[in-house]
């Protein structure tokens, strides 16, 4: 039996350490992993727990991230609780197997420390890898700081393994800004954490020889479409389960999470929609602007997949201008958050003015000052009654300004 860890009420942990402790507390049966910056310490710490007798499960070192996720698929299909960690290029190499995992309805937990994708090579945080996973059929939950990386990892097991869900779950945190920043974290004791996560409940385990099953079967035009539709429905239906588990976790910890987080939105006139640590930095900016009489607020999809179309509409129903911030190179389109938020808002009465900012690629700093400038630009749109800038702009870019598309008003 694994030893228990001595955990203080307040710890100073970085996001990687927080995630690795959550994996340990969930008593994962199999971790198959291949370390990559900046998520390496999750795997490294977990290896330490194994070596020092804090883990009863198996820890499998493999030759690549493709093999890591393949190992996870095998172990999960066999009938165990399974988790791993990755970032960036490792995530890209896993991509093929991510679709296998979700298609086979295996509730694997993947802690993703978000990092830019090469080329040029860059180890810093942006959301390119998170965006790469957005059609993979996984639930994607986003943590904005180290404590949330811990909280969301514990919740991820409950959500993915729920008998009405049975889908793999990614928990995202920002590379370096969360993963390597130590902050006050208030973890649960080993017993309380495990009591929350609970024992793994097997469904169609391959190692149940009394009831043989097949995983990864071939289906052509006869059944593939029905499988995919069912999978999509399971993702959509997971919304209610996510709400339920967040509520239960809130009762346990006093930390109440929602699929869409709203800050200072009650009377907000202008809003920023963002992901990751930027959400918190924008909250500081909004607070400072409120002291100057600007009604600024922040909206953040905690749950990136399934996309909270309904809650986004609700959160932004009374604002006049919205800036959607995308920390991923959009590759010849508008940013994904802009597209999805705009689509949601197009079906509302208010139809606020929506603009798009690409920012922070490859770890470029996003400052409070810049967040305030973006808020003020939204205010200028509101005062003018139309968008006064290009619809898509690049924030924090050196050299000449870069922007695309004007509103057509004639």
């Amino acid at each position, binding site marked *: 039996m694994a030893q228990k860890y001595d955990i203080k009420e*307040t*710890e*100073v942990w970085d996001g990687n350490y927080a995630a690795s402790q959550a994996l340990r507390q969930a008593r994962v049966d199999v971790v198959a992993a291949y370390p990559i910056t900046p998520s390496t310490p999750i795997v490294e710490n977990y290896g330490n727990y194994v070596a020092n007798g804090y883990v009863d499960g198996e820890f499998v070192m493999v030759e690549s991230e493709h093999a890591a996720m393949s190992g996870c698929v095998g172990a999960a299909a066999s009938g165990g609780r399974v988790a791993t960690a990755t970032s960036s290029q490792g995530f890209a190499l896993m991509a093929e197997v991510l679709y296998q995992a979700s298609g086979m309805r295996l509730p694997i937990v993947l802690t993703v420390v978000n990092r830019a994708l090469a080329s040029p090579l860059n*180890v810093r945080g942006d959301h390119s890898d998170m965006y790469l996973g957005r059609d993979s059929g996984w639930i994607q939950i986003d943590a904005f*700081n180290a404590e949330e990386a811990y909280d969301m990892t514990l919740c991820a097991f409950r959500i993915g393994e729920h008998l009405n869900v049975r889908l793999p779950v990614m928990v995202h945190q*920002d590379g*370096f*800004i*969360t993963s*390597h*920043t*130590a*902050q*006050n974290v208030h973890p649960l004791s080993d017993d309380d954490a495990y009591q929350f996560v609970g024992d793994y409940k097997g469904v169609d385990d391959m190692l149940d020889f009394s009831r043989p099953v097949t995983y990864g079967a071939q289906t052509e035009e006869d059944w593939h479409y029905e499988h995919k539709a069912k999978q999509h429905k399971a993702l959509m239906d997971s919304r209610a389960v996510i709400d339920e588990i967040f509520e239960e976790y809130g009762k346990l910890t006093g930390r109440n999470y929602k699929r869409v987080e709203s800050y200072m939105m009650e009377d907000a006139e202008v809003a920023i929609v963002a992901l990751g*640590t*930027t959400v*918190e*930095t924008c*909250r*500081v900016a909004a607070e400072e602007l409120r002291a100057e009489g600007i009604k600024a607020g922040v909206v953040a999809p905690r749950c990136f997949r399934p996309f909270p179309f309904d809650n986004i509409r609700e959160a932004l129903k009374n604002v006049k201008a919205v800036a959607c911030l995308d920390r991923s190179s959009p590759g010849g389109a508008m940013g994904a958050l802009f597209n999805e938020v705009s689509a949601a808002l197009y079906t509302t009465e208010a139809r606020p003015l929506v603009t798009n900012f690409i920012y922070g690629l490859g770890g470029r*700093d*996003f*400052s*409070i*000052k810049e967040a305030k400038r973006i808020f003020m630009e939204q205010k200028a749109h509101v005062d003018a009654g139309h968008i006064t800038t290009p619809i898509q702009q690049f924030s924090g870019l050196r050299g000449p300004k870069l922007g695309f598309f004007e509103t057509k008003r004639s």
Partner: protein
Amino acid sequence: MIEIRWHSRAGQGAVTGAKGLGDVVSTTGKEVQAFALYGSAKRGAAMRAYNRIDDKQIINHEKFMLPDYVLVIDPALAFTDNITENDKEATKYIITTHLDKESLIKEIPALQERADRVFVVDCMQISLDTIGRAVPNAPMLGAFVKISGMFELDYFLESMKRVLSKFPQKIIDANMDAITRAYNEVK
């Protein structure tokens, strides 16, 4: 909010120092943040570590900072790095050097108008004498405790013992000596 910027070379322990400081500060009920910018991420390369300390939860994640304290733990970086970048009227400097304060300030023009806020301590020599290796982070913490007045020395030593509890007693004792010596010697 108190903000601290460490100037260091990768391998000298600025990240460990910043995290250790965060650990101790958290025991006083305050909220902390400790992070680093690694530059080229090679041992010996110039890098910076940062602390934020506040009474309420720290939700600012920008790297930009107007430091209240600048801690320089590599003697050469006082000359080659821009240690006064984004400083404030009251920013205090604690610099590791074998030189006396006057000689150091004479060599670094940027420090001349800040002379009343510059403090020196030889963290390199202290760590060589006590720990046996050039690891200037622990002595810098001792100097910081003295200059900031944030803690009583005894409270800080007791808390650091807990932070270092996984290490052998010999190493803990050496670190306590290093912190105490720097506390007494910083000028």
